[in-house]
């Protein structure tokens, strides 16, 4: 199908690589021809099963005069019907082809299936979807606060911030060392001091702090604590700063509340169970402050978000 440049759509990609990153996380590289420009914070919906067209089982093509073969897609197992949303962890462009990077954690039916995919297999990619983090025009400083599987979109955002000349630091947390979805150098300090311990970020001039709940690498404690210490230390003044965060909801809430308290601009990438990702099913609601009588209204995580201003979110 010919498609206008820069249009969202459904694309077929031949997997370039799908490699284990740590005990639960994998990195998937997808070259996608004609994929439009994207923003960090945007996501794609991946079909966690083989694209049907490739199998030749669109059974309007029942062979003439023969009974239906065992090619009914619903009989090919219990692969998920609905797509699964994944943030873009990177997007580089060579000519017409976008190389998308996705870092995912194998947690359930779909992501475990994804972990079995090999280079050369085909995947159906729908996107790009959602609004993205954006980059503040005036504030020169940026802090990234990421937890676990929320870290991938921040890696992409770090590139944008660095390219825009923002002074950036990344505070990255995980339950334990082998759940960290980024590679680190051998010498991660136990103090929450930014260093070049994440080579991928160091290369673009972004220092990192690593925290784990059990102290198996880096600072022993929550990543939210390292953020509070950073603010308290005073080198990152509230009015110069934008915080971009993604991770478990409890973490984002703590980070968001602290920012609202201290008058720091803060953008959170929220996660919701999504059926469509395109704004049609109304499943992915987030409660957002509104000046209507109720004081709030529902916005859709997939199209109004996933990035929302922390000050606008009405938490449970």
């Amino acid at each position, binding site marked *: 199908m010919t498609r206008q440049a820069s249009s969202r759509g459904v694309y077929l990609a031949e997997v370039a690589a799908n490699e284990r990153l740590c005990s639960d996380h994998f990195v998937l590289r997808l070259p996608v021809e004609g994929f439009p420009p994207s923003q960090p914070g945007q996501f794609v919906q991946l079909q966690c099963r083989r694209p049907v067209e490739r199998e030749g089982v669109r059974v309007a093509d029942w062979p003439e005069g023969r009974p239906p073969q065992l090619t009914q897609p619903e009989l090919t197992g219990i692969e998920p*019907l609905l*797509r699964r949303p994944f943030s873009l962890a990177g997007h580089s462009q060579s000519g017409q082809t976008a190389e998308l990077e996705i870092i995912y954690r194998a947690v359930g039916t779909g992501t475990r299936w994804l972990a079995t995919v090999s280079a050369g297999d085909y995947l159906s990619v729908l996107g790009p979807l959602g609004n993205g983090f954006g980059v503040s025009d005036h504030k020169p400083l940026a802090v990234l606060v990421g937890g676990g599987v929320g870290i991938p979109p921040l890696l992409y955002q770090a590139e944008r911030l660095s390219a825009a000349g923002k002074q950036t630091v990344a505070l990255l947390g995980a339950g334990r060392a082998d759940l960290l979805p980024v590679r680190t150098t051998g010498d991660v300090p136990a103090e929450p001091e930014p260093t070049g311990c994440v080579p991928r970020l160091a290369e673009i001039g972004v220092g990192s702090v690593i925290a784990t709940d059990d102290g198996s690498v880096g600072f022993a404690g929550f990543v939210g604590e390292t953020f509070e210490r950073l603010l308290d230390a005073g080198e990152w003044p509230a009015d110069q700063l934008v915080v971009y965060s993604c991770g478990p909801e409890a973490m984002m809430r703590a980070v968001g509340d602290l920012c609202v308290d201290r008058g720091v601009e803060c953008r959170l990438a929220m996660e919701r169970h999504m059926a469509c990702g*395109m704004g049609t099913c109304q499943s992915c*609601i987030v409660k957002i402050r509104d000046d209507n009588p109720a004081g709030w209204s529902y916005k859709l995580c997939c199209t109004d978000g996933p990035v929302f201003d922390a000050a606008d979110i009405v938490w449970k």
Partner: protein
Amino acid sequence: MSVDIAGLKLANPMMTASGTCGYSTEYADFVDLRRLGAFVTKSITREPRAGNDYSRVVETRAGMLNAIGLANIGLDAFLAEKVPQLEKLGAPVFVNVAGTSVDDYVAVAEQLEQVPVVRGIELNISCPNVKAGGLQFGTDPEQVRHVTAAVRGACRRNVLIVKLSPNVTDIAATAAAAVEAGADALSLINTFTAMAIDVEKRRPVLANATGGLSGPAIRPVAVYMVHRVYTQVTRDANVPIIGIGGIQYARDALEFILAGATGLAVGTALFADPTCLHSIPEGLADYCRRHGFRRLTELVGSLQTA
């Protein structure tokens, strides 16, 4: 490929199922909406509705449950914001209407008479996810008759489609009531009331506790219901059926057509791949070519049962 729905000629049988395609142009980047036989909107109610709490959907085997709770922007916002977009869509529009009283339905239908781009109304008397109204209208043949007759009076220009619930003992009874009260067409089916339980938490997965089951899992039941209504009610009354329930591929659509459906609507499958709105009609055309049918309508209800 063209089909006739109560005198309204559609270029092909393909429609969107209400609630799975937004209000207007949500899928415009993914598919060419002009190629639709008709566009069916999300349910509209007289007043806006916020809908149910999170979480509203969960995937189940070969299907999903939803309990959106008819969240919608309400009639006024629909007329002001969405109708101008629908005017540019390039396909006939059917507006799905929901309500909690007969007055609600009639009031919305009256207003939609004044909107030229709207060519028909689909009465949602079968939503399982709202506490009042919705399903209760759809399960009792007397209520079906009552609400259909009332809206019939308000639908002078618009085609009147009644969308039936599968949550009944005999769908032919509610179908007959709708046809006798003046429905121009029937669409079936809506979702099955169902439940999914998080066994670790020992709680329902959905905030609303119950939800509506849709997707491939319901297709065999939907095909059966279309066949039953076709043979018992609509064939003789010459009322077209719009077949809905688990359609994902052209072969699925063919089952509905052979069972007696004239039109087709795709719901859950749009979430997985909106481009099925193109691939299904292409597959149907291909099937007709291979089997030597000149018109798709020759196939309607042509199931051989003997």
